[in-house]
């Protein structure tokens, strides 16, 4: 029997979808190893109201650390608290998320445990004493199969690879204290600035609409935003050319040096399809491209393409999507 640890990422008092994906991944590992899932969540007073959530997604034990100083992410408190718990729990594996927070936290925790870590994991297996994972390298152009021999095996899942699955467990709740005094932290997040209210995040949105130079000017991104609004469940991204020109913030950039997205539907608007952009979106389930150049490389990866002027096609598509949504 071997138990599995999951770190449940939260922002403010809300559990993030990637946190529930980590719990579901840990559940899959625990079922293979014949053990329990122990999930840790940290946050400000009130976060304990969210404790049933990890239970619904398969956690046997939910450890809740509430503290007034945890309204923002505290890397040092989270590292110390997770590392202490993993050490004392004797876990076979610890599962994190490959998010901005998980990328920060997982390697710190692993280093403290004296083990390595693989981030951006797309699949995993238990093989004897090793956990074998697949992890894209070289901007997704090569897939590596890696054997992790350290124990616990620390992995961080790529977002949107695991579908959070309801797998209700009693989810015994334990309350715990931060492993270090938050006021002693040498790194302090003094503010978390939310993007536009209710704005869907690129990594989590089921639909991503991205715009490129073909839009010709910053203000024409309105076409992309209108299409996203018609879908209702879409986030807006951009190419590096566009963020370098300041039309959109760097945080919107999809590509090799930017964000990696893998939505159900990706619509490329006026994007030629440079290698550096394809690296960020090629694992999307369905890709649609609209571009006036029929030879644009984006059409090589697109499931469906329309050759045409984005200023004509996108408003027509927006109208058609709006109509289609009405009949749902």
């Amino acid at each position, binding site marked *: 029997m071997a138990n599995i640890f999951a770190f449940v990422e939260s922002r403010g008092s809300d559990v993030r979808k990637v946190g529930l994906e980590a719990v579901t991944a840990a559940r899959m590992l625990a079922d293979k190893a014949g053990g329990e899932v122990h999930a840790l969540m940290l946050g400000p007073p009130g976060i304990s109201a969210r404790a049933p959530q990890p239970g619904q997604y398969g956690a046997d034990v939910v450890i809740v650390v509430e503290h007034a100083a945890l309204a923002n992410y505290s890397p040092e408190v989270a590292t110390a608290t997770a590392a202490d718990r993993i050490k004392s729990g004797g876990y076979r594996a610890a599962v994190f998320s490959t998010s901005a927070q998980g990328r920060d936290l997982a390697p710190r925790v692993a280093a403290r445990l004296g083990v390595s*870590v693989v981030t951006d994991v797309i699949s995993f297996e238990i093989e004897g004493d090793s956990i074998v994972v697949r992890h894209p390298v070289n901007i997704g152009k090569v897939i590596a199969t890696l054997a992790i021999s350290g124990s616990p095996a620390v992995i961080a899942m790529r977002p949107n690879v695991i579908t959070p699955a309801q797998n209700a467990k009693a989810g015994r709740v334990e309350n715990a204290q931060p492993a270090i005094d938050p006021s002693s932290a040498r790194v302090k997040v003094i503010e978390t600035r939310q993007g536009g209210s209710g704005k869907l995040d690129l990594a989590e949105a089921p639909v991503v609409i991205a715009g490129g130079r073909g839009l010709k000017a910053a203000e024409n991104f309105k076409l992309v935003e209108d299409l996203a609004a018609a879908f209702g469940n879409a986030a807006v991204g951009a190419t590096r050319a566009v963020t370098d020109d300041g039309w959109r913030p760097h945080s919107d950039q999809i590509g090799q040096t930017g964000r990696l997205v893998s939505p159900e539907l990706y619509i490329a608007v006026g994007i030629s399809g440079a290698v550096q952009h394809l690296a960020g979106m090629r694992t999307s389930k369905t890709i649609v491209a609209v571009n006036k150049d029929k030879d644009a490389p984006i059409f090589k990866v697109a499931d469906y393409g329309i050759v045409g002027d984005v200023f004509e096609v996108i408003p027509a598509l927006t109208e058609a999507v709006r109509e289609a949504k009405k009949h749902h």
Partner: protein
Amino acid sequence: MCIKRVPDMDVRFKIGADNVSLDEAGLKFDINDFDAWAVEAALQLKEKNPGSEVTVISLGPDVVQETIRKALSMGADRGVQLKADKVPFDGLAIAKALAEELRTGAYDLIFFGKMSPDSSNGIVGPMTAELLGLPCVTAISSLQIADGKGTSKRELEGAQEIVEFQLPAVLTVDEGLNTARYPSLKGIMAAKKKPLEVKPAQLPPVQITVRKLELPAERKAGRVVGEGAAAVPELVKLLQTEAKVL
């Protein structure tokens, strides 16, 4: 700062005969973009703080000396090669070797790129910080230093964090922090005379082994539905009935 030599990604990669390494024939190598921004950040601080020194460290075989020379030609003062036959995938092993070397210098700031595109793991910076017991901020896109303290911005999914930290610290650099300078001809000449020390890397046994590398399944060829706005109804139909995403 710690830098890595990485292949240009704008190619079709070939897997080597051993199935666990890349066929490097024809690949062009250069400094990792994120590391170039880390070098630039360090150089800008050096310019603001006369008397400070910028050391650049890279782990790997002798070819990494080219990468170190590039950072020296941008303006870094001295280089250290931690010599190893190859760079292991295991980021903890790399972090341990770097930490051994970094412990010997009294650095105020240690910069890393936030990740490298080849191994795409992004763990060496924060792991090194943990091993050294130093404060660490990852993926910074702004930086101000004053009175022994720093402030940075980090991009999150749909949000930003403003982070304050104490020095000395480890920082990993995201895109957007700066634009890396090109080495000047004068810089390239000067770099040839700058010290570059070669030491064996103290690499521990690895905990992660590469079992296999493979090329991902190609996306099946798509189709052009039609031209112009007239093709929209057909596209919408396909999204509803075939892709089932609408």
